[in-house]
């Protein structure tokens, strides 16, 4: 986020004289992020032969997609791994090709693990290149199939767009926003933090400049995919904390995205506090605990969660 701040300041207030310490910090993180981006570009290029040969489109997700397309959302954004999305039906083909070019699962997996990651999760466990130690996440869906929200990833593939410079695809702008919001608010306890929220702001501005009916089409897609809630949270937090402006004529529809029940209002407060207050004190740790519990509660139905955990505990005793 520091480097995103550097970029934002440099582009919006280029004449501001920075205090020497801030200039140091920006200089240091700027170089580090440039390295991370350089490395990610290289890793994407290493995957391009595979993407050409695979029997399915390979979609770059998140940071790697922004970077290769070269849009503003990649500015000041470091990335430690690459995420790709492929259709579930092509997993075996893609995995075989990845294995042939040196990608291995980062941890030893049991048969149950393999089945779990394919049928009950939306991504394979992290893979690592045997030589370069770079990490790759292979997704075959958006959210766990067991998640309360069940967006259809086939729709995402249909609307995805071919990139100019590399044989990869990216999600449509509105799907990029929904995907980012869904991950931020519905699965990872805000792990991507403020940076991911700011990505969403930049993606919205990008979409707004690219197509006239952008906001309506975003709304429409959220309804189609049942992702009203994460979009609501993203728009709520971005408007309150990052000065995102939704045009007057659609603002009403955004406000009506999902019923603001007591639970939703509570979550809004929780998110705002987590994004925009300093993470110290007892209230902050209570806040973290609540977010952690919430992320598990919405991920699987309770019985299934119990079965899964029991299985993990028992298999550990076997070894």
């Amino acid at each position, binding site marked *: 986020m520091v480097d995103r701040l550097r970029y934002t300041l440099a582009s919006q207030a280029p004449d501001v004289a920075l*205090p020497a*310490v801030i200039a140091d*910090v920006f*200089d240091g*993180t700027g*170089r*580090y992020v*440039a390295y991370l981006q350089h490395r990610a570009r290289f890793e994407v290029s290493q995957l391009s032969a595979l993407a050409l040969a695979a029997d399915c489109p390979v979609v770059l997700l998140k940071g790697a997609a922004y970077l290769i397309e070269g849009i503003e959302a990649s500015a000041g954004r470091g990335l430690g791994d690459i995420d790709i999305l492929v259709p579930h039906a092509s997993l075996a083909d893609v995995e075989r090709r990845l294995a042939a070019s040196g990608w291995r699962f980062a941890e030893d997996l049991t048969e149950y693990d393999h089945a779990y990651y394919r049928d009950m999760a939306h991504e394979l466990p992290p893979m690592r290149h045997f030589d370069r130690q770079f990490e790759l996440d292979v997704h075959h869906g958006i959210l766990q199939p067991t998640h309360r929200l069940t967006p259809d990833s086939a729709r995402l593939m249909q609307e995805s767009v071919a990139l100019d410079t590399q044989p990869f695809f990216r999600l449509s702008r509105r799907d990029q926003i929904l995907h980012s919001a869904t991950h931020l608010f519905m699965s990872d306890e805000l792990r991507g933090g403020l940076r991911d929220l700011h990505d969403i702001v930049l993606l919205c501005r990008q979409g707004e400049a690219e197509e006239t009916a952008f906001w309506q089409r975003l709304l429409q897609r959220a309804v189609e995919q049942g992702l009203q809630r994460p979009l609501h949270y993203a728009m709520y937090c971005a408007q309150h904390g990052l000065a995102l402006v939704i045009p007057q004529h659609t603002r009403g529809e955004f406000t009506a995205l999902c019923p603001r029940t007591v639970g939703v209002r509570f979550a809004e407060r929780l998110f705002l506090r987590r994004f925009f207050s300093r993470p110290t004190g007892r209230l902050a740790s209570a806040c973290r605990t609540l977010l952690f519990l919430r992320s598990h509660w919405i991920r699987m139905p309770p019985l299934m969660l119990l079965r899964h955990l029991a299985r993990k505990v028992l298999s550990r005793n076997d070894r």
Partner: protein
Amino acid sequence: MQIGDLSIREFQSRLSTGMCLSFGPFCTRISSDLETFAETFHQCYAGLPVLCDDQIAHFSVSVRQRPGLRGHLRPQAEFLFEGLAPFDPYPRSHAFPMFEWGLNWCIANTAHHYLMLHAAVLEHHGRALILPAPPGSGKSTLCAALVGRGWRLFSDEFGMLRLADGRLHPLPRAAPLKNASIEVIREFAPTLTLGPRYERTRKGTVVHVFPPLASLARQTETCVANALVFPRYVADAPTRVASLSPVVGVTRVIKNSFNYLFTAEAGFDALCQLVRRADCYELTYSRLDEAVDRLDALLAASGGLAQAATGHAELA
């Protein structure tokens, strides 16, 4: 004002609410509620400048007793960087080595506007020497020995080559001696001030050499290097100096750098500039006194551009 101008009581009270200090080029906001830590710190860094409290800091760190019930049985200290604990707690009695290690961690992970070498840097008669070496090559021991003979301690752990100006910036800190080298230095350089003994740390027994006041007083005086010496301690080996070509010098410095990859062309250029000016050698040694004498002679004969090699850096 310096830390030594404050009484230990005053220092402890300032430290408990947090204060800004300058470690070489880095403004560090530090707070701690641990009394023994404050005592050791006060003694070690008496010559360190105290900055005003509203300074913007490069790092905000805190060394504190770990909360929780366990504290009554086996008290632990934790290191916080920007409010988060990047690594496991230490026994409370090891708070000082934990801080030293923690601040190194902060620098190594964020200060990429420097090319950071794993090296000791020393200066003598206006000429500077870089000793890059992997852990276990006797770098700290040799560094302490030279400081004991009156060399100015630039830094023990980091060779800080600023990319913007290509100059070495001092970072005089406590230099940790490990295991056998503790007694060696106590005997070789009795004038040095050594800190408390820490048994059974991750690196065995550790005793710190406190940075001399004269070195701390000059911690804004930058320089360029005149010689680059790769030291290697080999038991019972005769003292031997071999000249290295600049190309070999560069490749070996790269192996001893924390962040060469992150600095890209700027780092490469800085290193090329470094070996154009400084001569490169390998030093194999077992006897400290001989090694020190050889380094003295080597530095006097090295790197033609010695004049005007020092300059001042201003902190924020």
